[in-house]
């Protein structure tokens, strides 16, 4: 009998019992999965992307399966920050697991305002800034595909909150390291990568795009190699802790991300395959550590010999 391995990780001033979180938009506000797993077994819950005002999202259909993945064009539907505080926080308060709130804005000012409101909430362990959104004031250029725009968003958020600021990067860029560096320059505390890749599905029968929105975000196992590559590139170039995301469905996937340089991981689409995917991953990581005589999971972070 080996002794219980140390699964805890810390970064950006956050202390997690283990490195496994749920990814924004795939886990609702936690409560939806409460009947299917123990929310207190995972490292953190990341909630659905919030905006200042409630957002309607896109028309239907919004999701479609693709080979080894899925496209979603939810369109960031959410209840808005006020309803989040009144309707969602009370449940989350009862769960002894850190809550990280993902949010976005249509303008710099909105980012700043939401960050300010979140700053006031003791239940929020950290904020995760989704910068994969078009800047409606500047011709719809996506904040997360332009280093300068990313820099200003992060600066704005940084100035509005003393909570740890995690920036979630878009993979739809030529140079992910450049984006990561811009966020580091703007004093982000950590980086999450990756968000979804822009894709499309075609409905041959009706000769239409399958999704009402035409394009959607690709997630799931299909994107894992791209996510791993980006985590690895960024971890070697930028001195910020990284949360690895993209196609993680089991403990092996999660451990691969740690080796590639991630301090923690998020589980997204896999929650749809198995509602307790995140909890199982925690359990299986622990089993792996035991079986391989690894006393502290932190030994694995960035341990890839390349």
């Amino acid at each position, binding site marked *: 009998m080996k002794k219980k391995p140390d699964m805890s990780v810390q970064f950006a001033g956050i202390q997690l019992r283990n490195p496994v979180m749920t990814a924004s938009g795939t886990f609702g506000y936690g409560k*939806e999965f409460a009947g299917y797993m123990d929310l207190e077994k995972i490292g953190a819950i990341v909630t659905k992307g919030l905006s200042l005002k409630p957002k309607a999202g896109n028309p239907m259909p919004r999701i479609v399966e693709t080979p080894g993945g899925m496209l979603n064009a939810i369109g960031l539907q959410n209840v808005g920050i006020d309803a989040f505080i009144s309707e969602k926080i009370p449940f989350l308060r009862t769960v002894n697991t850190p809550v990280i709130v993902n949010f976005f804005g249509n303008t710099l000012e909105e980012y700043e305002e939401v960050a300010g409101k979140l700053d006031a909430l003791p239940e929020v362990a950290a904020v995760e800034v989704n910068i994969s959104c078009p800047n409606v004031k500047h011709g719809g250029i996506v904040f997360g595909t332009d280093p300068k725009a990313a820099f200003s968003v992060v600066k704005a958020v940084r100035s509005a909150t003393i909570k740890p600021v995690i920036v979630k990067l878009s993979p739809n860029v030529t140079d992910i390291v450049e984006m990561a560096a811009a966020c580091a320059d703007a004093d982000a505390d950590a980086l999450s990568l990756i968000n979804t890749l822009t894709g499309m599905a075609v409905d041959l029968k009706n000769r239409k795009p399958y999704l009402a929105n035409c394009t959607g975000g690709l997630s799931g196992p299909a994107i894992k190699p791209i996510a791993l590559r980006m985590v690895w590139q960024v971890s070697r170039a930028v001195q910020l802790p990284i949360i690895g995301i993209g196609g993680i469905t089991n403990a092996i996937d999660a451990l691969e991300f740690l080796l590639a340089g991630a301090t923690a991981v998020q589980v997204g689409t896999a929650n749809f395959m198995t509602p307790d995917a995140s909890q199982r991953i925690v359990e299986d990581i622990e089993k792996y550590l035991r079986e391989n005589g690894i006393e502290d999971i932190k030994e694995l972070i960035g341990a890839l010999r390349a």
Partner: protein
Amino acid sequence: MHFKSMVVSNIEVSPGYCLIRLTAPRQILDARPGQFVMVRVQDGIDPLLRRPFGIFDVGTFSPEYPESPRQHYLEILYKIVGKGTSILSMLHSRDYVDVLGPLGNGFDEGEPETEKLLVGGGFGLAPLHFFARKHAGTAGIKAFIGGKRKEDVLCVTEFERLGIDTYVATDDGTLGSRGLVTSVLEEQLETGFGSRTVYACGPEPMLRAVAGLCKRHGIGCQVSLEANMACGVGACLGCVTKGRSHSESAPDYRCVCKDGPVFDAAELLWD
């Protein structure tokens, strides 16, 4: 619930349609008609997502081998349309699948004395069958079954065996009257009287027609909707439908999985 389930039997009941019986924990007996399950038909990533299916029936049976305890089951009536349902149709007894459910809200089962008109097409008969099984014997339950061709008309025997008056219509007239099932329903609505509710499940155009009919006749109508689903538990917002008051500025989206799949037709926007 989330459980591993063993295939008990899996038979083709009409060309392209199969009925599968799956073992389930005891609590399956509490499932309500109109609820559904999400099935993972095999391990791996192909298919990636679960597939939603209405509950056709639940019950208890004694396995063939001696001294084994009685087991509970869940039945799904499904149409083979794509990858997931093809794989499902090739499962043998003793194979395993992974089931999440029962999910969503069932039909509002109403007062015993209310006349209940069930309207369905294709695999939409599944939840109606479960409903009928529970309400068989109550006054004035009738079934209206539509389909393109004879082969698409399911469950007639089952309904008749339950002693339910059953009306059939097919597009090509190969079974029952020729035309839409909504025409048959309309005749009924025009002749009948007393308190009545329509329970409908089937293709979207049919539901739309039924909802319109009920609105015109001022009678209650519950519809069970379909939508592409990822999570089935209200988390991904992939499966929404527009509520009555929906507008771009004041969105009123409801989750088919969590707020439905059964809705009061009057609560939805039929634009």
